[in-house]
């Protein structure tokens, strides 16, 4: 319903519509952002920034594809920007990665369950480009072609990153997942 709303240009879109979209996609986008960043504060900021930007254009926003895919791509882009900013401020990825135990810290505003912590830890060991493609494809349910378009790279590059990433995850997960 909300997705259809966004395919029609209209002034009747309200704050309630915006809230409905937020409630529908919030958890999925936060999981995506945590999986990409391995950092709950980055994840919260990314989803926050994307929804604020989305709200700014909500009245005139015209959807041409999947709203979930659109928001997922925006969150992925924002996570990349925020992580890059952190790095430029001298906060190393290693320092972020070491905070994996904090994903379950009750004092946080976002608390991850065990599966998400395990997933995020495993993905954190991959280069960001591979992680991004895996998360968008598996969790965002985006086709390789759509990911390629949104990232501005070729489909073959996307497939390559996915293949390499999955291959690396095999060894990581084999040691961490008890079936």
């Amino acid at each position, binding site marked *: 319903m909300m997705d259809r709303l966004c395919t029609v240009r209209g002034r009747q879109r309200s704050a309630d519509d915006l809230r409905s979209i937020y409630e529908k996609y919030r958890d999925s986008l936060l999981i995506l952002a*945590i999986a990409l960043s391995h950092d709950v504060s980055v994840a919260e900021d990314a989803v926050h920034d994307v929804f604020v930007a989305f709200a700014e254009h909500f009245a005139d926003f015209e959807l041409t594809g999947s709203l979930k895919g659109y928001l997922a791509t925006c969150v992925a882009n924002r996570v990349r920007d925020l992580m890059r900013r952190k790095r430029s401020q001298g906060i190393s990825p290693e320092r972020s990665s070491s905070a994996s135990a904090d994903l379950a810290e009750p004092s946080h505003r976002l608390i*991850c369950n065990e599966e998400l912590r395990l997933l995020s830890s495993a993905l954190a060991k991959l280069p960001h480009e591979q992680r991004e493609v895996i998360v968008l494809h598996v969790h965002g349910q985006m086709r390789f072609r759509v990911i390629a378009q949104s990232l*501005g790279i070729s489909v073959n590059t996307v497939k390559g990153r996915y293949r390499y990433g999955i291959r690396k995850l095999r060894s990581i997960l084999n040691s961490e997942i008890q079936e």
Partner: protein
Amino acid sequence: MSSAEKIKRLFAKSDVTVSPKVDDRIMSDAELALGRSSKTESVSAEPNIWRIAMKSRITKIAVAAVIAIAVLLGVHYFGVSPDGAGVAWADVLENMEAAQTVTFTFESENEYQEGEYSWEKGTIMVKEPYRRIDRTVRLRSGDGPTHEEIHICIVDLSRQNRFVELHPSQKLAYYAPDHGGNDTLMTYDGLKKDFRDGTEESLGTVQIDGRQAVCFKISRENKEFTVWADPDTALPIRIERTAKEGLDKTILTNITFDVELDDELFDMTPPDDYCVMNMATEEFKVPFELTEAHLVQELTTSAKSLGGTFPTRFGRGRPGEDAVEKAMAEMRRAVPVEGGGTPMLGTEFLKRLPEGSDWQYVGEDVKLGDATKAVCWWKLPGSKTYRVVYGDLSVRDVEPNDLPPVPWLTEEE
């Protein structure tokens, strides 16, 4: 269970508990943003379709060109020696890699997206981490006319692929501080990874451009590279890339290594008298005061490009999907107008009008030269009259009660 299945299962079971503080923070800021956008809508909220088209087209061309060049230069990472010829593939790779600078001429032809064709010819200078491309680009959309542009594009691969593209004839520069998304694609590491699966084949000694050369062929997924190298220096003298399917061909010739290239060639600062658009923020720096004359000029150019009829929408206009589709169709068939001046200054003039200027566009189907029909208007705060642009491009002061009705605004009321 495969790794992909494990990942899918983990995602399916993943959950996050969200504090109400997070919801409050996100939704209160989003609602504020929504409120702000509603208030400013009358002036600038609606994206300008011509601006989007320009930005999109320029970005795609710039990206396509840079990727093509990076890919072509990336062949030296294929890294497998062929057997046979006196000059081995490894020799060619080693010599290329040792070079500090390279220049070459290029010609390319491709369908960069469905129905959109480009032909390019120019010279490229590489001095790590910079690329400078001086080129003539010809663009054609569908069966439309061909439009030719001359650009100078400089890319800095070390800083998120930031680039500047200069259009000397219009004194216009597009600047992108961060191309985003392509962090490794255009770096050698990314290419190394992407092309590791390439297969190399020596085709022995052949004649090319009236001289002898050793030839190598590399097949990579849907592309085929052919490299001709000088048998004495083991440096490439010609490189071709063709797509196995579709239209995509690039030829590099006049390849010269280790030439002296002045740093000034790669200075990314646009000249002071250029209008500069930041493509990340869409901010437009204009080195002079914008006036309604700029608006009139852009309206004129838009109408001429559509055969003498003003566009359906110009920043604003009739709402609705059919209006947007009609405007997009107009954009596709628009004929470039020679001497049309710097694009987008008119929309920038409107964007900079003070809040409350009540800007409206009603030019749909109005003929250029029609002095009886209004095209657009605005009213500066404090003024009792509107400034109205008519189809004959005259600009007159009009009392509010004398403005023509705007159907979609009347319906809303």
